[in-house]
C-alpha cells in the first residue's frame, strides 16, 4: 500500500491471480461435470437423471452466498473443514455445474435426431454415437451460453471475500480501508474484472470461429 495506484498495482495483480486460479479450477471442474451430468440427463438414465435434476434445482434456487456459507461455516459442524481456497473453487464448481448441466443438456437436445439416427443405422453403438456425433455437434451449439456462465463464475469469485480468500475484491477492500482511496482502487479492480471478462469473451468467439464448419449457415 503506497502513495499512488502504481504502488498498489502488484498487490492488486496478485489478487487477480488468485481470482483467476480459483476461477480456472472452478470453471474447469464445473464444465466437465456439466457435460457429464447434461449427457446423463439427455440420455434419461433412470434414477441418476432424477438425482441430477434435484441437484440442479437446489444449486440454482439458493444464493451462491448461502452456498459458500454452508461450505465454510456449516460443514465443519459435521467434521468437514475446508480452507478458504478449497471453499472458493468448490463453491464455484458446484454452483456453476448446476447451470452448465442445463446448458449442455439443451445443447445435446438441439442436435437433430436424424444425425443420431444415421449413426445408429450404420451400426454405431449408442455410446459411440454420443461421443462422435452428439457431443461435437452439441458442444459447438453451447459455446456462447457456456462462456456467459464461465464469465459469471469468474465475476462471482469476488464473493469469496466473505471467507477471507485473498482474491481481487478482498485485496482491493483491504487497500481501501488502509488508504481510503476508494475510487481509484475499486475502479482499478473493476477495470481488471472488466478486461479479464472481455478477454474470455474474445477467446470464446475465436474458439467458435475455429470450430465453425465450412459451408454451414446455421453456425454463424
Amino acid at each position, binding site marked *: 500500500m503506497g502513495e499512488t495506484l502504481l504502488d498498489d498495482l502488484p498487490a492488486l495483480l496478485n489478487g487477480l491471480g488468485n481470482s483467476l486460479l480459483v476461477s480456472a479450477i472452478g470453471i474447469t471442474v464445473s464444465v466437465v461435470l456439466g457435460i457429464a451430468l447434461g449427457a446423463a440427463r439427455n440420455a434419461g438414465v433412470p434414477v441418476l437423471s432424477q438425482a441430477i435434476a434435484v441437484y440442479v434445482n437446489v444449486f440454482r434456487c439458493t444464493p451462491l452466498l448461502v452456498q459458500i456459507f454452508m461450505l465454510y461455516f456449516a460443514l465443519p459442524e459435521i467434521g468437514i473443514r475446508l480452507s478458504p481456497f478449497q471453499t472458493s473453487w468448490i463453491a464455484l464448481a458446484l454452483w456453476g455445474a448446476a447451470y452448465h448441466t442445463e446448458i449442455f443438456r439443451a445443447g445435446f437436445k438441439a442436435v437433430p435426431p436424424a444425425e443420431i439416427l*444415421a449413426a445408429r443405422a450404420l*451400426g454405431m453403438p449408442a455410446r459411440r454415437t454420443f461421443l462422435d456425433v452428439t457431443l461435437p455437434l452439441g458442444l459447438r451449439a453451447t459455446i456462447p451460453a457456456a462462456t456467459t456462465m464461465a464469465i459469471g463464475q469468474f465475476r462471482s469469485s469476488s464473493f469469496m471475500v466473505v471467507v477471507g480468500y485473498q482474491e481481487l475484491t478482498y485485496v482491493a477492500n483491504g487497500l481501501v480501508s488502509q488508504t481510503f482511496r476508494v475510487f481509484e482502487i475499486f475502479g482499478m479492480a473493476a477495470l481488471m474484472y472488466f478486461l479479464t471478462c472481455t478477454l474470455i469473451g474474445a477467446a470464446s468467439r475465436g474458439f467458435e470461429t475455429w470450430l465453425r464448419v465450412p459451408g454451414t449457415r446455421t453456425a454463424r
Partner: protein
Amino acid sequence: MTAPLERGADTILALEDIHLSYGELHVLRGVSLTVRRGEVVVLIGPSGGGKSSLLRTVNVLQPITRGRILLEGEEISAGGVDEDTIRQRVGMVFQQYHLFPHLTVLKNLTLAPRRVFREPAAEAEVRARELLARVGLSEKAGHYPDQLSGGQQQRVAIARALMMKPSVMLFDEVTSALDPELVGEVLGVMKDLAKSGMTMLVVTHEMGFARDVGDKVVLMAEGVVVEEGPPSQVLVDPKSERTRQFLARTQHA
C-alpha cells in the same frame, strides 16, 4: 398375397407376416416379402401405405408388433438380438441424406468402419476413396456436407452405407428431396450398384427406375402388399384394381 417362403441360401431377406402398430394406428397389417441375393426389389404405392415403416423394421430401427424378419436365415426380429450388429449388415440411405455436418466427406465414410470394425484409418481411407470414385465424387473428399449439392450429398450417403459392406441396401425415397435435375445422378449410382450385384430394397416414386432396374415390383397400400411381380407385369398389366388406380394417378402427375 403371401409369397411362398424360400429359405434357400440365396434368400437374403425374408419378411413373414409383419405387423406394426403405433398405438391405434395399424401401419403394417401382415406383410410378407422375400428378397434374394442380387435382387432389386422396388416398393411403390401411395404415401402412408407403410413402405418406409417396412424399411425401418428391416434395419431394426422400428420394432415390429407381430411376425418374423429373417436376415440371411437368422431371425432379427426376436428380443435380445444385437441391433448394432444387424444394422452393420443392413445399409440404409435416407430421403434427407443425414450426413454428419461436422465431418468431411472422407470422415463421414470412415467414421463407422473405424469405430465399429476398428479398421485402421489408412485402410478405411483407401476404401473410402475407391467408393467416392465409384459415385463420381473423388474431388470432394475434403469438402464438408454443406458445401455439396443435394445430389452430391445423397451420393456420399450411399457411399457411407457401402463402407460397412452390407448384405442388403435399403433406400428410403432417396430422390424425393432432390431438385429434378439432380435426381438422375443419384439414380445412376443406384443403377450401377444394382448392376454390380448388390441386393437392394428400394422405396421410390420413380416409376422409370422401378421399370428399368427392378427385378420385382411390390405395390403396398394400407399396410398390405397389394400386388407383386416383375415390373413388366405389375407396371404394365396389373391384376389388381388398386394397382391400376395408383399407376393411373402417378402417370397424370
